[in-house]
C-alpha cells in the first residue's frame, strides 16, 4: 500500500531505535504521553515498546473518544434509543460502552431498540430521508476529527428541511483536555506523575493545526511533537522528544508534515464555528468536569439539537468503584495497576471505558501487550 508501507518498515524502525539508544541519557527516565488513542493503538499493534530502551516509557493519554464519554451521556443515548419509533445512529465504537448494570447500546439493540451503526454522518441523513415518519438521532462523538462531518450533517439537514433529524452532540476538544491534565495537582504540584513531553494528535492536528499546542509548550514547558499514526511516525516523534528534553527545549515540532499545517484546515474550522459553540462545562469520564472542553449546537440550529428536542437531562453517574480508568486516563496508573484488569474487566466484559475501544489503554494493553513480563506475573 503506497504511503502506508513506507511508514511501517522494520529496517527503518531499527535505525531510529538505534538513534534513540545513542540519544538517551542513561541516567534519567523519559516519560512521554501519547494523547491520542490512535497512537496508543499503533504502539500496541506494532509492538513499538519492544524497540524502546527501558528508560523510555509511554503513558497512554485520554485521547480516545469512547473512553472519555461519561456514563451519564451514554445513559442518555440508551434512553433515546429506547423511545418508541426512534432510530439512533452511531459510530461502531460506542455500541459496547458499558453503563450502569452492564447496559450498553448493543444490549438495548438486542432488546428491540433501533440502533444503526453508521460509517459517516451522511448515512444518518440518508436514514432520516428514508424514514420520514420516524425521529432519527445521530449520536455524535469524537474529537476535532469527527466534528466537521457532524457540522456538515446539521447544515445539510437544514438545507433539506428535515424535520425528523437531530444530533445528540458530544464532541470534545483536545487542547482543553491536555491543559486539564497538565494543571492537575498530581502533575503541577505533587510531581507524582512526571510527563516529559507529549506526542501530539495526528488527525486532530490536521483539522486544528499545530498552533494550538504552542501554549502548552510555553506555559508548562513541555515539548510537543505532532506525529502521524503510522509506527515510524511514532518512533521518529519519540526521538524528536528525547532530543528536545536533552537540550532543555520545549517547543512544538511537527513530525507529520505530510498532513499537518500550522494553521490546520481552515475550511473545516469555519464550518465547525458556524454550527457549534463552546459548552461552559462538560464532564469527561476519568477527568471529571473540564471547563470549555466540549461543543454544543448553536441556537440558530436548535431545531437539530436532540438535547432540546428531547429535553435531555444528563445524570452524573460515577464509575464502578474498582475501576481505575480515571487514574489511567490521567497517566497516574497503568492498566496492569488496576485490580480488575484482565480478571473481571476484559474486552469481552468491559467494566471501564478504557477496555472497550481498541484505542483504550486497557484494551490495547490486554489485546497486544499482555505478555509483557510485569503483566503475565500479575495474571498468575
Amino acid at each position: 500500500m503506497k504511503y502506508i508501507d513506507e511508514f511501517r518498515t522494520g529496517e527503518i524502525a531499527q535505525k531510529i531505535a538505534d538513534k534513540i539508544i545513542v540519544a538517551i541519557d542513561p541516567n534519567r527516565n523519559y516519560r512521554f504521553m501519547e494523547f491520542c488513542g490512535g497512537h496508543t493503538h499503533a504502539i500496541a499493534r506494532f509492538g513499538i515498546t519492544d524497540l524502546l530502551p527501558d528508560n523510555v516509557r509511554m503513558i497512554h493519554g485520554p485521547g480516545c473518544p469512547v473512553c472519555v464519554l461519561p456514563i451519564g451521556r451514554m445513559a442518555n443515548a440508551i434512553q433515546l434509543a429506547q423511545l418508541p419509533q426512534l432510530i439512533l445512529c452511531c459510530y461502531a465504537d460506542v455500541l459496547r460502552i458499558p453503563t450502569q448494570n452492564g447496559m450498553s447500546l448493543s444490549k438495548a439493540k438486542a432488546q428491540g431498540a433501533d440502533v444503526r451503526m453508521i460509517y459517516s454522518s451522511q448515512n444518518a441523513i440518508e436514514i432520516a430521508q428514508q424514514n420520514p415518519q420516524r425521529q432519527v438521532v445521530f449520536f455524535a462523538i469524537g474529537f476535532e476529527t469527527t466534528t466537521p462531518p457532524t457540522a456538515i450533517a446539521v447544515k445539510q439537514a437544514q438545507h433539506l428541511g428535515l424535520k425528523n433529524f437531530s444530533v445528540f452532540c458530544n464532541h470534545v476538544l483536545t487542547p482543553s483536555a491536555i491543559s486539564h491534565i497538565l494543571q492537575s495537582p498530581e502533575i503541577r504540584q505533587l510531581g507524582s506523575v512526571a510527563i516529559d513531553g507529549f506526542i501530539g494528535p495526528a488527525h486532530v492536528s490536521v483539522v486544528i493545526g499545530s498552533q494550538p499546542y504552542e501554549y502548552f509548550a510555553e506555559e508548562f514547558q513541555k515539548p510537543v511533537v505532532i506525529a502521524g499514526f503510522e509506527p515510524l511516525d511514532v518512533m521518529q516523534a519519540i526521538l524528536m522528544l528525547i532530543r528536545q528534553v536533552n537540550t532543555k527545549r520545549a517547543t512544538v515540532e511537527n513530525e507529520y508534515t505530510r498532513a499537518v499545517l500550522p494553521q490546520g484546515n481552515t475550511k473545516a474550522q469555519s464550518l465547525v464555528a458556524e454550527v457549534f459553540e463552546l459548552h461552559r462545562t462538560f464532564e469527561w469520564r476519568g477527568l471529571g468536569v473540564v471547563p470549555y472542553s466540549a461543543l454544543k449546537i448553536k441556537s440558530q440550529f436548535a431545531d437539530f439539537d436532540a438535547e432540546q428536542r428531547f429535553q435531555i437531562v444528563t445524570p452524573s453517574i460515577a464509575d464502578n468503584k474498582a475501576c481505575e480508568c480515571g487514574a489511567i486516563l490521567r497517566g497516574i496508573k497503568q492498566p496492569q495497576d488496576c485490580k480488575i484488569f484482565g480478571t473481571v474487566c476484559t474486552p469481552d466484559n468491559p467494566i471501564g471505558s478504557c477496555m472497550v475501544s481498541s484505542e483504550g489503554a486497557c484494551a490495547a494493553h490486554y489485546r497486544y501487550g499482555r505478555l509483557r513480563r510485569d503483566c503475565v506475573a500479575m495474571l498468575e
Partner: protein
Amino acid sequence: MQGNIKPGYTRTLDLKHGCIEMSHGAGGRAMSQLIQQLFLPAFDNAFLRPMNDQACFSCTAGRMVISTDSHVITPLFFPGGDIGSLSVHGTVNDIAMSGAKPYYLAASFILEEGLPLADLKRIVDSMAQTSREIKIPIITGDTKVVEKGSGDGVFITTTGVGMVPDGVLISADQAQPGDKILLSGTIGDHGIAVMSMRENLTFHADVVSDTAALHELVACMIATTPNIHVLRDPTRGGLAAALNEIAQQSSIGMMLYEREIPICETVRAACEFLGLDPLYVANEGKLVAICAPEHAETLLQVMRTHPLGTNATIIGEIIEDAHCFVQMQTLFGGNRIVDWLSGEQLPRIC
C-alpha cells in the same frame, strides 16, 4: 365446460415473478410443487428420486465423520459466490478438516415468506452446480417457510458425512511444540468481498470471496503427509480465532511471523480504511495445517502445486506456553498478542 377441467392440473411455478408464500411450507400441493419443480430437477440423483424423507446409502467399515453447518449471510449474493455455493463448501470443508473424504450432503432450507422464487432458483441452481462440480451429491433435504420478518430471505443448513482414511488422526488438540503452522493462501478475501456489498458501505473493492471446497487439497496433502496434526479452516473470526481455538485445545502457544502471512493488496487497503484487522476477517476457502517440522517443507510444496494452495506459506510455529497466547512478530520488529476477537469486529472511529 366440465370437460375443460384437467384433473390434478396446477399452474407451473412462476419462477420469474413469483414469491415464497406460507403455503409453500404447509405440506400441501404448493409445497409438493416447489419440491418437484425447483429442488428435485436441480439436485437430481438416484437417492432423491424416490422422494422419501430420508436417504439410504451403504458404507464401508471405518471411521465416519458427520458435520453440520448453518448458513446465514447478508447479502445472499456476493462477488465470488452466494449462500448456495457457500452452504456446500462450508460443510464439505468442515468434514475435510478431519482428513475425511466427504461423501454425501443433506440440505435444510428455512425460507422467508416473500423471498422471490427467482432468487431461490438462483441459489438452488448454484448449490446444485457446486455439488456436481465437487461430486458430492445432496441426497436428502427439507424446507420450511417462516412469516415475513422472521427470517432473512433464506437460511440453509447443510449436513455432510464422510470417511476418514485409515491411519489419519487429525484433531485440533494434536498440535505440539516445535510444529510448523502452514496457511494455504491469502486471508480476508471473503469478509471484505461480502462487506463491500453491504448497503451502507459504498466502497468498491476489486476482490471476490475465496469460497471453495478444500477436500481435494486435503486429499493431496494427506497422500504425502498422512501424519498432519491439525487442520482448520479459518472462517468466522478469521485466522486469529482459528489459531486461538487450536492453542486452547492443544494447550500450547504460537509464534507467528507477520511478514509470512499473505494478504492481497485490496484486502489490506479495505481493512486499513475500515479500521479492521485482516487477521479477524472471515475466509471460506483457506486452511491452516499444523505438522511436525520435518514434514513442513514437503507439505508446503504439495499445497503449492494445488490451485487452492498456490500462495501457501509457513506462517509460524508452535511453542510451549502455559497461557496459550498466540503471539506475532510484527513486520515492524516488535511482538504482539493476536487475541481472541471480542464481540463483533467493529470499525474504529479514528
